[in-house]
């Protein structure tokens, strides 16, 4: 049975009225959250940049809110932390998911305080790249060499991403997760003009035909005590629009809903790493293969 569902913030959950506090309807945790300031801001991961966001990594980005599909109005939070409205969606806007556990007491014991906010680390997702100018460069070199030989160890997990033109049905791509020395990485190679021109966390702009290695890291969620909702601290990904992909004119019929609840929902569940039986290691000719991997309720 499903443990949780994912959605976007609604306009009401993100509305802060600076002039009349009584009109503010934003979630309490978002009102209190002020790192970064203003509180509604979410920063981009490198993945969001690679998937088409115009905003630089680790800076405030535009992220989508749940739209009003009856009057075809699309809402987003801009890089100043204000809710804005437009007549058509934009795939370059980032996705900042909201997680709702069906059991409101779930994971309460795992909450931790950080700058006065209750947070939870739950699930994992590719977020930031290995910095080739720092220590990560050595790992990136090894990963590149092994990928070119197709000798990396797969975890069995694949991540699904959407991309495409605004107003058109999305294209879907899958990226394979690999394991090296107990850590998980996902390679990305982009073609020209398929990204927004943002700078990555390394301060470098995106180069086409280059292998970027994204580290798979735990997702941090902000906990709203009143509603028991968890809001992703970061804008995780981009490239997803609001085309209707099945019958009906509701949010549940859109590609965003499909992405969140068919793909992202599975993709944040960690692949499981099981240490290989030591006796078999002795027989192994490749000493680096320390692990075997089990597909943890995921597609192959």
């Amino acid at each position, binding site marked *: 049975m499903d443990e949780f569902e994912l959605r976007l913030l609604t306009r009401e959950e993100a509305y802060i009225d600076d002039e009349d506090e009584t009109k503010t309807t934003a979630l309490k945790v978002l009102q209190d959250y002020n790192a970064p300031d203003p509180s509604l801001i979410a920063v981009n991961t490198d993945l969001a940049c690679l998937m088409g966001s115009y905003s630089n990594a680790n800076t405030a980005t535009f992220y989508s809110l749940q739209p009003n599909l009856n009057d075809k109005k699309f809402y987003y939070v801009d890089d100043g932390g204000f809710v804005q409205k437009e007549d058509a969606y934009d795939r370059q806007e980032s996705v900042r998911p909201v997680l709702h556990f069906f059991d409101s007491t779930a994971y309460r014991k795992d909450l931790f305080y950080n700058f006065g906010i209750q947070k939870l680390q739950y699930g994992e997702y590719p977020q930031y790249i290995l910095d*080739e100018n720092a220590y990560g460069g050595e790992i990136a070199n090894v990963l590149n060499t092994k*990928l*070119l*030989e*197709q000798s*990396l160890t797969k975890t069995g997990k694949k991540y699904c991403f959407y991309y495409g033109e605004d107003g058109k049905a999305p294209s879907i791509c899958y990226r394979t997760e690999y394991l090296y020395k107990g850590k998980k990485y996902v390679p990305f*190679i982009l073609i020209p003009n398929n990204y927004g021109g943002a700078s990555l966390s390394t301060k470098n702009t995106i180069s086409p035909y280059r*292998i970027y290695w994204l580290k798979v890291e735990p997702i941090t969620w902000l906990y709203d005590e009143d509603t028991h909702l968890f809001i992703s601290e970061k804008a995780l990904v981009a490239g997803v629009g609001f085309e209707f992909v099945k019958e009906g004119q509701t949010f549940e019929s859109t590609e965003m809903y499909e992405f969140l609840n068919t793909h992202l929902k599975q993709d944040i569940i960690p692949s499981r790493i099981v240490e290989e039986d030591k006796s078999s290691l002795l027989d192994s000719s490749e000493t680096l293969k320390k692990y075997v991997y089990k597909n943890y309720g995921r597609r192959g």
Partner: protein
Amino acid sequence: MDDFELRFLTKEEIYVNQYDEDETTALDVLQKYCTGVAARNTDFSCLTGGLRSGSSAFYYLESNYSNGRFYFMGDYANYNSCDQYQLIESYKGHLPIRPVLYFPNRKVSKENLNFDWEQKIYWWEYGEYPQFVLDENNQLERNIIEVLNQKLCMQSLDKTGKTYCFYQSKKNTPCSINYVSEYVYEGKKYIPLVANGIKTGALLSTGEKIVDFKLYWLKVEPIVWLYDEEKDLFISEHALVSGPSFDFVKEGNGFEATEMYEYIHNHLKKDIIPSQIIEKDKSSVLDSSEPLKKYVYKNYGRRG
């Protein structure tokens, strides 16, 4: 196809005296060939450290190894004197290799060769090697790059079983020996290469500078050899690869003791022998969930 030998051109075999034809000793085929004794660098040569692009690549010549001085073919485009070869120190492992191929125990029949009526020279395709990159500015090749990149990221490309060896030498540092796998896609062979610290400024055949950390796909193509009838020698049309130096890697002070000799005889000589592609049994193709896997590959007398 293992009864051949490889060597360099000698100083005499490229010597052209523009002022006194009688002094010219260059091979007849090189005198007739459109770029003369000059050779074009392949992209693989540039990506392994070759200094020049275009039709005026420097390349190594047979040298006097015992005194530690080495000759290379100079910049023929600017050549205006008899001094077209220069000296190079042994540790500089950045010049390309333009191999000469010959068969010590047999003569090649000219019937098997091609004839260029314009230049009046024989040429031959023999062996294969990664030479030029897929060009992202060409839509067809760009589509192939995208598929190859996608499949590489999923580690789902088909290997031919062949690996190519190349050396990377940096000044005053020991050279590193690298191997890169050959892949096949829709019946054509490619190797992937990530540019790493190539600072030579050479332009690729696409007209672009080498971009550090960029992934390039090199097409494995037949090697074209120019045939010199008089000496019964085949001279590679292009400078194929760079990297090895003339540092001594074993006892002795002859060519046989150098890193270059080891590279040419242990690696390049094997690497030009084509991997063999055998079409997969059609029934198994029908059963396959991945329709692109049309081929299986046999290792054709090569290391795995």
